[in-house]
């Protein structure tokens, strides 16, 4: 059966506002970034020189840029995985609570209201090697915490700071997803003798897969693009380059260093990577999702 609209232009008219917003706030700036990537320009825009692919060549011949690519991968996948795992665990726990459920659920959502940079500062204070309570506690059990010198510890710190507030967001979606799972299925499984772990992996987890998939995409995009505030507030990309992610480099080279050409070239590379990742996710991972 085919349905068609007698009005030929109405659908386009209805789409127009959304298309306009996309064009003005996404396509136009993205186009500007692409254009800028082929130029080298002084900060005030007084002189501008077309340099062809120079900005890109410079990026891809620099070992530091590949190091930041690797850092970004480690950082983003850690944030996405940790954020999803912890949120799912909390959601499963909160879903079981019967008395005072609202209180738990509300409290778990609170961190989402904290701005990323502020979250960074909070964790930075907690982990300050000479004053932070967490760092002092770690010292007391014999673990020498100094993220100013130790790159792995710095990475752990930024992953925790970036994940912490994202957990609330993920939690909200997982909780809604859990509540939509029909009780009858779980009861039937229980009657057939499936234990809690079997019920979770056999029924709950597959039925949650659309939510999990959506959150995976959102979290990866968040980790790739939205986290420079956290990094700037905690480690400024150091020590060495251990926490310089690609988006932090874009921010730092462009807005702090005022090297617009290189910054634009880096954001073009970042755009391509995220586009590729999204395609991969939708083509391969989505097949495993059961709607």
């Amino acid at each position, binding site marked *: 059966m085919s349905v068609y609209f007698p009005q030929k232009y109405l659908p386009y008219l209805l789409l127009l506002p959304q298309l306009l917003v996309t064009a003005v706030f996404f396509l136009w700036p993205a186009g500007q970034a692409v254009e800028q990537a082929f130029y080298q320009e002084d*900060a*005030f825009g007084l002189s501008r020189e077309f340099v062809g692919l120079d900005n890109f060549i410079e990026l891809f011949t620099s070992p530091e840029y590949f190091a930041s690519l690797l850092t970004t991968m480690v950082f983003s996948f850690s944030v996405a995985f940790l954020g999803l795992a912890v949120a799912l665990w909390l959601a499963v726990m909160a879903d079981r609570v019967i008395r005072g459920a609202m209180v738990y659920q509300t409290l778990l959502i609170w961190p989402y209201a904290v701005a990323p940079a502020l979250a960074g500062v909070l964790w930075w204070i907690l982990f300050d090697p000479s004053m932070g309570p967490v760092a002092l506690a770690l010292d007391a059990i014999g673990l020498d915490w100094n993220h*100013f010198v*130790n790159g792995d510890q710095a990475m752990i710190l930024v992953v925790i700071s970036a994940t912490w507030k994202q957990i609330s967001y993920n939690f909200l979606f997982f909780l809604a997803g859990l509540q939509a799972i029909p009780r009858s299925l779980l009861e039937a499984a229980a009657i057939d003798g499936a234990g809690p772990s079997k019920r979770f992996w056999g029924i709950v987890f597959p039925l949650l897969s659309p939510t999990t998939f959506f959150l995976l995409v959102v979290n990866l995009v968040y980790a790739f693009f939205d986290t420079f505030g956290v990094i700037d507030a905690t480690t400024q990309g150091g020590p*060495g380059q251990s926490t310089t992610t690609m988006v932090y480099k874009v921010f730092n080279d462009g807005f702090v260093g005022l*090297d617009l050409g290189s910054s634009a070239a880096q954001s073009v590379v970042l755009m391509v990577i995220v586009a590729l990742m999204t395609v991969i996710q939708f083509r391969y991972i989505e097949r495993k999702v059961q709607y």
Partner: protein
Amino acid sequence: MRKLALVSMVAGLAASGSALSATQIEWWHAMGGANGEKVDEIAAAFNASQDAYQVKPVFKGNYTETMTSAIAAFRAKQQPAIVQVFEVGTASMMAAEGAVYPVYKLMADTKQPFNQEDYLSAVTGYYTDKDGNMLSMPFNSSTPVLYYNKELFAKAGVTAPKTWQEVETVSQKLLDSGVKCGFTTSWQSWVQLENFSARHNLPFASQANGFAGMDTELKFNGPAQVAHIEKMSEWQQNGIFSYGGRRSDSASKFYSQECAMHMESSAGYAGVKRNAQFDFGVSELPYDSNVIKTPQNTIIGGASLWVLQGKSQAEYQGVASFLSFLSRADVQADWHQFSGYLPITTAAYELTKQQGFYDANPGTDVAVKQMTSVAPTENSKGLRLGNAVQIRDIINEELEAVWSGKKTAQVALDAAVERGNVQLRKFEKANQ
């Protein structure tokens, strides 16, 4: 849009009333907190002193945000008349010849009395062109000094070290007396390389540290600097030195009495006074007595005021008279005593001394003395390097590799020079 502008203009006019006839001068700055209130106070005092001009200070966030928004505003032709720019932005501002109005020229064009001799050359030197003309007006300048914990020092029976050799022996005694670490440093690139080079009269970069031309190359991988960083790396291992972060994060090690000494900006005085729960002293930045007998002056950090192009003649008259007002001895002395930044004129320094401020607040004059004891040389005048922010980041990265034992000082400094030179060439190309 135009209607809205009209409405807001009418509303603004109705609100301002008395200021109607005065020429408005916008001043974008990066001074938050108590210093920001002081800036408002200074502008209000200027506005009250005459009725032809009205200076309007606008807080634009931190240094980076202020500079970025001024540049964005310039590109959109909405720039303020005056903008405060931090020292690492100096080369970018200087290179933007069509965008800035050099202060010496402004003063001459508006026939404002202006004598460069009145200013402390160690401060203004950073902001002059190669012929010695002042391009911007220094506003808040500071220089690194050594803060030390008098109580821990008394316990260990030591006095403030003058040389790096003494830093080692003093620290060793402090460690023996039970202190966890000898010293820490903030802003490692500024204090341990830029100022270390200046203090020992060694070039940080060729072409007179970049003052003589954009075709400059970094030179801080010389034997003295390498030896210094190598020594610090050894100290990081044995506890004499403890690294505490890229900016001023290291201060917490000093406040918590983990480290007995801290190398930090002279403008950090107020912060130390507020946070240190112990008696502290201020002393000059140490020097290596094997390298130099009489140390050179140190170089400054902080920010200066740049005048931007594209305003009316009347506004520039106002800007010039405001800059004269800012340089007045009483205004400068008040700002210096309140904020801990250096006075920019000799008269302001003399006035502060006369008022007995240094006697009442021992240590506040150390920075001034350190800056003015000798005439600045081409190596201690300052730095004029393009992409300075990126170069500092590179230095931070390489030094951190030394502190964690991944690289030797020589390898790290060679790498920093090589990577930094790439940034310099890029800047040169973009600003031809």
